[in-house]
């Protein structure tokens, strides 16, 4: 493999507290050096651009196996690298669900065939994602599952959840929790509040999320296990995680770009492009989420990229499936609306897209640009203006709440394992 020099860019690597203009040399699939006057077989001129560790997305639905009309590992990987993501974590709520070592191996095999992004599989907590019996987590761990989750649903049985935490503790793997108390959100499609009442949509309350967060934090604490809360969306959830972290518990959490930037006021018009779980909340929640990123309570920005076939999504609001795509818009939305308009500093945003998610999964030094780290690099043009056009997405999923948004900031180069996998 040849060497690649990314020259003259502003290198931001929060894990090393690095923010300076320098060259970055990638060789043999690893970061070889950072400095001045380096040379390589190939050079990418990054003057005026921002160079970061390859972005990592902790929450992606690649829909393979079973749901090829929505996404495949191939299309999802293409969408990932086009959005600047070198690494994605595949959720196991496929058809059939990834609840066995064979299924985990299949994800690795398909990802290797695609050979675009790094795809790490997760495995289900429960057999068949049915919430009744533990899945074979140890077998999946040996096959390379890096975390366990029944994402899409909360695990209703507290007893099963307790045992899952205990079992996962022995494997040193985190459990990723989709926290919404099932009974309370049943029939709901929108944040419970003025907008849901006005629009006549069933509610999913903040309390339902926070009750679930509290139970899972408490069970994980009792089991001495690692817990990661997926897509926190309320001020109260942020506060629960903040207080758990203050007590030194091994708790992490993530937030999505849409929960950071949109509120339930967007449901006016009943467009299913604004339907996802948990639902869009209020402006106060958005502010609390940005504050949670700023003070380190929230470890990662993750997309919850959840593609659906257009004919599935374009239905009555209540009938349409929940979930929107995010891989190809996340970076632009974060740079323009959360860093720019939202006031978050750039280094924190980069941290939450790189070393932050890497730490959640124990993937370091992936997510950094230390010498010897995997040569995953994203080069961002922070001034580039572009308009979100779903028809141009690599993903077959086109439903995004950001359609038509004019954004500033976009990935122009994505390098995975030392090889250029996307170039704008």
């Amino acid at each position: 493999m040849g060497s690649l020099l990314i020259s003259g860019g502003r290198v931001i690597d929060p894990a090393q507290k690095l923010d300076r203009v320098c060259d970055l040399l990638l060789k043999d699939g690893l970061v070889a050096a950072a400095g001045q006057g380096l040379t390589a077989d190939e050079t990418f001129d990054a003057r005026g651009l921002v160079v970061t560790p390859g972005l990592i997305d902790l929450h992606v639905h690649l829909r393979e196996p079973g749901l090829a009309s929505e996404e495949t590992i191939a299309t999802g990987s293409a969408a990932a690298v086009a959005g600047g993501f070198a690494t994605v974590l595949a959720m196991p709520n496929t058809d059939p669900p990834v609840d066995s070592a064979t299924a985990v191996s299949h994800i690795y095999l398909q990802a290797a065939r695609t050979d675009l992004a790094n795809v790490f599989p997760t495995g289900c907590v429960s057999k068949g994602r049915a919430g009744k019996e533990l899945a074979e987590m140890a077998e999946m761990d040996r096959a390379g599952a890096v975390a366990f989750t029944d994402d899409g649903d909360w695990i209703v049985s507290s007893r099963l959840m307790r045992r899952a935490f205990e079992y996962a503790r022995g494997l040193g793997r985190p459990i990723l929790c989709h926290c919404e108390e099932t009974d309370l959100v049943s029939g709901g499609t929108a944040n419970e509040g003025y907008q849901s009442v006005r629009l006549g949509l069933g509610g999913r309350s903040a309390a339902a999320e926070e009750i679930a967060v509290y139970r899972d934090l408490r069970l994980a604490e009792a089991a001495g296990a690692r817990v990661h809360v997926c897509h926190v969306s309320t001020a109260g959830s942020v506060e629960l995680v903040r207080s758990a972290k203050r007590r030194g518990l091994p708790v992490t959490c993530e937030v999505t770009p849409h929960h950071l930037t949109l509120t339930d006021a967007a449901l006016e018009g009943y467009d299913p492009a604004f339907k996802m779980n948990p639902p869009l909340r209020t402006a106060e929640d958005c502010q609390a989420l940005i504050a949670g990123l700023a003070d380190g309570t929230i470890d990662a920005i993750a997309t919850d990229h959840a593609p659906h076939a257009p004919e599935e999504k374009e239905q009555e609001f209540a009938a349409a499936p929940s979930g929107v795509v995010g891989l190809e818009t996340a970076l632009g939305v974060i740079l323009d609306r959360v860093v720019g308009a939202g006031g978050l500093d750039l280094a924190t945003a980069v941290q939450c897209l790189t070393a932050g998610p890497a730490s959640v999964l124990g993937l370091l030094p992936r997510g950094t640009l230390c010498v010897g780290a995997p040569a995953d690099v994203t080069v961002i043009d922070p001034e580039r203006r572009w308009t979100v056009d779903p028809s141009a997405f690599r993903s077959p999923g086109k439903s995004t709440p950001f359609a038509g948004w004019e954004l500033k900031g976009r990935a122009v180069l994505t390098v995975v394992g030392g090889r250029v996998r996307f170039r704008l």
Partner: protein
Amino acid sequence: MEETPGMTWTRKHLLGLEGLTREELTTLLDEAARLKPVAAREKPPLKDLAGTIVVNCFFEPSTRTANSFQAAARRMGAEVVSFSPGTSALKKGESLADTVLNLQAIGGDVWVVRHAASGAPALISRTVRGSVINAGDGQHEHPTQGLLDIFTIREKLGRVEGLTVGILGDIRHSRVARSNLWGLKALGARVVLIGPPTLLPPELAATGAEVTGDLDAVLPELDVVNVLRLQLERMQDAFLPSAREYARIWGLNSERLRRAKPGLVVMHPGPTNRGVEITPEAADGPQSVILAQVTNGVAVRMAVLKLTVAAGRSAAAAEASCGGPARG
């Protein structure tokens, strides 16, 4: 009718009463008043909508509203095509948008839509060329019911502004309550929402309505009480302990009527659960305008059809003269 109200009505669709101005509401109500003799068959049918096909799309069963729209369309000279999901492709997995586009290809100018999903008429209005009239969507709005209720109040009491109107019952699940609320507020009425706390979202106070669980305290202040139907399945969802308890605390009965203003107007959008939210004496007593509501429904729907179709046509004409596509 020879006289057409001027530029005060420009909306091609009627998806809800939220957002309508006092002038717009007054235009609709005045037009309905002019059309009422035709609705009541005191005058012959009109030709305003001759050659227009009104598609009655009732994705959720209804007799009263569907018949009322059908009568209104015919009195305006329109043809009516009725469509109900029992005979449709919906059960074969066809999407709502596809179903409507197919009906449009067969021919349809106005879409009267009843659907169990809140927002379904909004979706259809983005799909079809013609006017869409919401005939009740989920728990969102039922604008023509709201209009006919307000029309009936105005007819009975001569005004709306300054009246105190109580809406009593299952506010949470009621599209009728929401449409009444928006329309009455825009016209300057005081609106009091009354019901058990589980069925009365406190968020509605943000609209300027008053929210209370205490019917007996507020009853003497009411000029009008609009009693909502109580779905008996609410007991299974733990909204209420029993119909008996509901009837005792929130039901309208003759004993309560004695403590109300003598001229209290009693309304109900129907169908009634007699003995639950309203007793037969209250429903059939001299203060009840329940049957007048039904009659007025035809006049109101004639007005809505006439004004929305006219607005749609002038919008299309304006676009055509600008060289743009004649699409809504």
